[in-house]
């Protein structure tokens, strides 16, 4: 079985982003970029399925500027076999990303597509589900466990209030939650090896997909600042303040 994994280049999760003074977006000049953490979990899951002999090939795809080849190389250093980059400098809606991925699915015919449940920049949580609708595939979102059983995939999902397990026909879509696995670190020799793995570059036009945005960002502003309060000296004082000043208990 072939597994397709998509990865996104985003601001490193440790960076506290700043809104540009002109309100057009966040300042991404000179900030550290990295693979979206949920995408890293997706790559790890694909590689583990290959190591277990369930998958025979892991293909990684990323859509974005030339620099996202770095994240494809990282995924290949983690164990993916080959990469596809769809190059565009335009910021894409999740719908456009899902349409491009649907074309890749059509070409590659994977048995399983694994994606991160959301990217930590746009926080949309849409692409995997949209890809499901566009390809007619079932989905197991927010996965904390993935098992292939008798020609189907069983996905345990993190839902409000607990866990839900579904059985999906293949091919299927899985989006990762944080407890699915703990991604490994790529070693330096594996980074060197990854440089020699095949990486195909394409453009949205090659797939004939209309990527014009449906959503226009009119303004980006910082959130309302919360003022720090006071430090209390004791539990007594804390309880007194909560009762008499804040009146919340």
């Amino acid at each position, binding site marked *: 079985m072939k597994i397709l994994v998509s990865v996104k280049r985003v601001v490193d999760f440790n960076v506290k982003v700043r809104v540009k003074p002109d309100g057009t977006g966040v300042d991404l000049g000179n900030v550290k970029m990295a693979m979206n953490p949920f995408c890293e979990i997706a790559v790890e899951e694909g590689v583990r399925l290959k190591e277990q002999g369930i998958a025979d090939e892991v293909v990684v795809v990323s859509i974005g500027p030339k620099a996202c080849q770095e994240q494809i190389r990282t995924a290949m250093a983690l164990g993916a076999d080959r990469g596809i980059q769809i190059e565009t400098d335009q910021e894409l809606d999740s719908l456009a990303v899902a349409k491009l991925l649907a074309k890749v699915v059509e070409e590659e015919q994977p048995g399983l597509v694994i994606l991160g449940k959301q990217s930590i920049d746009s*926080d949309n949580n849409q692409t995997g589900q949209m890809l499901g609708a566009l390809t007619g595939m079932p*989905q197991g979102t927010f996965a904390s466990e993935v098992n292939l059983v008798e020609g189907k995939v069983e996905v345990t999902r993190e839902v409000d209030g607990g866990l839900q397990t579904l*059985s999906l026909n293949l091919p299927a879509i899985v989006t990762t939650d944080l407890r699915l696995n703990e991604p490994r670190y790529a070693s330096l020799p594996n980074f060197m090896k990854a440089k020699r793995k095949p990486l195909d570059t394409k453009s949205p036009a090659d797939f004939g997909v209309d990527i014009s945005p449906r*959503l*226009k960002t009119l*303004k980006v502003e910082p959130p309302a600042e919360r003022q720090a309060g006071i430090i209390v000296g004791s539990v007594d004082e804390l309880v007194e303040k909560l009762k008499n000043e804040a009146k919340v208990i």
Partner: protein
Amino acid sequence: MRILVIAEHDNVTLKGATLNTVTAAAQLGDDVDLLVVGDNCGGAAEAAAKISGVSKVLVADNAAYSHKLAENLGSLVTELASGYSHVLAPATSTGKNFMPRVAAALDVAQISDIIAVESADTFKRPIYAGNAIATVQSSDSVKVITVRTTGFDAAATDGSAAVESLDKVTDAGISAFVKEELAQSDRPELTSAKVIVSGGRGMGNGENFSMLEQVADKLGAAVGASRAAVDAGFVPNDMQVGQTGKIVAPELYIAVGISGAIQHLAGMKDSKVIVAINKDEEAPIFQVADYGLVADLFDAVPELERQL
């Protein structure tokens, strides 16, 4: 403007998130229909009819909808959506699951997690873990929207809408329910609790969360956790508050042994009153706390419990 809201419920009762979503819908127009999809969901439908501002309750009651499979729910809502200018659902794990399928099937973008309605096509939503607020405008014919419930007040429940049954059944037959393990708790749910007591990595292990449970029980509170505590295996993920967990805004949020990473703050900084208990006085949580107590939590928490 005709607006369709998809209700969040467990067949028997309606979840509070529905009420906040109706408020968001009412800001778009006054013709709001509410869709209750479930299996033996008469109880939820009855409660839905009482929500003020709802013109009509549509009920799709069928075994195909018993576990809210995204494929089945998604195609039903897609079929119904054509008569509406806006389709809204709360950004719960159910709403997040099926709504993007609706959007893609309609060939429109989804606007996730809105916190404010600026106009019929313009909305505010947090990005970058809430470190920025984007104002976005949609040019699509149907606006598919998930609503961050903490951004809107709950609608009143003194209405009496007409209830209409739908006999349409969409069963894709490509996914099946196997089992579920839902946490059994007498405490309120995190997203609707008025008070939340949360623990972080500083709790040391899962057993120590029983200290927080004792405080919570005295306050009628829910118990939450930071991602660090979940990652460390102390508690299950459904307790996680933060960017990738639950977004909460209770009257009182007590953060115990939580340093205050931006991903955690993203999930709780809209709480009315924040209390932080941490032995590290440099912890960033103190920058958002109304009341900070620099103390060893193993002394302070039992003491707090005694005084409540």
